[in-house]
C-alpha cells in the first residue's frame, strides 16, 4: 500500500532529524528554490528558441546542447532536495492534493523533456516543421508551469 510507504518514511531517522530541526527544512527549501531558477533558465532558453523568440541566430541543436547539462544537473538537485522535503513531512503530503498533482505533472514533464522534446531538439532542423517546435515548446512550458504552481500550492494547503 502507498500509505504504508508514507508511514515507513515517517518512522525513519532522516524524518526525525529534518522535521525536528529549526533550520534544516528552510535551508533545503532554499536550495530547492535556487535550483528552480536554474532549471527555469535551462527550460526557457530552449523553449524560447523553439518559439523563435530566444537565441535566434543559434541552431536549435546548439542551444539544446548548451542547455542540457544545466537541465539535468538542476533536475537532480531538485529531486534530491525534493526527496528531503518529502521525508520531512510524508504524512502531511499523503493528504495534500497539490502534492499528488505535482508528482503527476513532474512525471509527465520529465518524460516529455527527456523523450519527445529531446528528440525534436536534436533533430536536423530541415526535417522538423515550425509548428512542431512551437507545440513542443508550449507543452513543455505548460507542464513545467503546472509542476511549479502545484508545488507552490503544497505550502498553502493543509
Amino acid at each position, binding site marked *: 500500500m502507498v500509505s504504508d510507504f508514507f508511514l515507513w518514511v515517517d518512522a525513519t531517522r532522516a524524518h526525525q532529524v529534518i522535521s525536528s530541526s529549526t533550520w534544516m527544512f528552510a535551508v533545503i527549501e*532554499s536550495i530547492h528554490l535556487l535550483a528552480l531558477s536554474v532549471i527555469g533558465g535551462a527550460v526557457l532558453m530552449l523553449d524560447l528558441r523553439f518559439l523563435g523568440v530566444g537565441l535566434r541566430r543559434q541552431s536549435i541543436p546548439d542551444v539544446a546542447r548548451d542547455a542540457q547539462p544545466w537541465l539535468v544537473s538542476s533536475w537532480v538537485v531538485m529531486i534530491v532536495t525534493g526527496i528531503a522535503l518529502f521525508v520531512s513531512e510524508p504524512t502531511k503530503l499523503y493528504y495534500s492534493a497539490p502534492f499528488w498533482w505535482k508528482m503527476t505533472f513532474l512525471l509527465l514533464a520529465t518524460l516529455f523533456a527527456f523523450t519527445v522534446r529531446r528528440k525534436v531538439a536534436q533533430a536536423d532542423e530541415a526535417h522538423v516543421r515550425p509548428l512542431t517546435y512551437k507545440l513542443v515548446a508550449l507543452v513543455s512550458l505548460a507542464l513545467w508551469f503546472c509542476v511549479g504552481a502545484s508545488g507552490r500550492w503544497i505550502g498553502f494547503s493543509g
Partner: protein
Amino acid sequence: MSLLPFCEWLASTKYSVALHESLYMYPVVESVHVLTLCLFVGMSVMLDLRLLGITLRRVSVQEVTDRLLPWMVAGFIVMFVTGILLFYAIPVRSYQNVFFRLKLIALVLAGLNAWIFHVGIHQNVHQWGADVRTPPRARFAGAASLFLWALVIVCGRMIAYNWFDCDMHPGPVMQVLTGCPGKDLPK
C-alpha cells in the same frame, strides 16, 4: 528617522488589509512572484554563466544580452510589481524582518552590479563579446550577479520564518538589526 509609522499607516489602508486577508489573492501573487524566478533569475543565470565562459561558449555575449535582456526586463517588472504587492500586504512585519532587510541590501547591490556592467565593460561588448574568456570586469560582474541573486532568493525564502520576529523577543544584536522595540522600553 524610522519608516515604521509609514509601514503602520500602509498596513491600515483598505487594500493592504484586503490583500492580507484574501483567501486566494495573496497566494496567487506570491506564486507569481516565485515562479517568475524562472524567467528573471533563470535568464540572468544563463547570461552570468556565459560571462564566466561556462556555457553558450560559441554564442557572443552581445547576442545573449540582445536576445535575453528583454525577457529579463519583463521578468524583473513582474518580480518588482508582485514584490511591492507582497510588501503592501504585510508592511510592518516585513519592515521589521531581518531577512527582508538583508534581501533589500542584496537587491540594491545586485542592481548596482548590473548597472556598472551595462554602463561599463558592456559598452564595448563588440570587442570582446565573442571571446570565451571574457575580460576580468565582465567575469567579476557575472560571479557577483550569481552570488547576489542567490542571496536575494535565500533571504526572500527566509522572510517566511518568524525566528527573529519582534514577538519572539530576539537578542540585543537582532533587536538593532530588526528595529524591534525592546522588551522593557515603553512602547
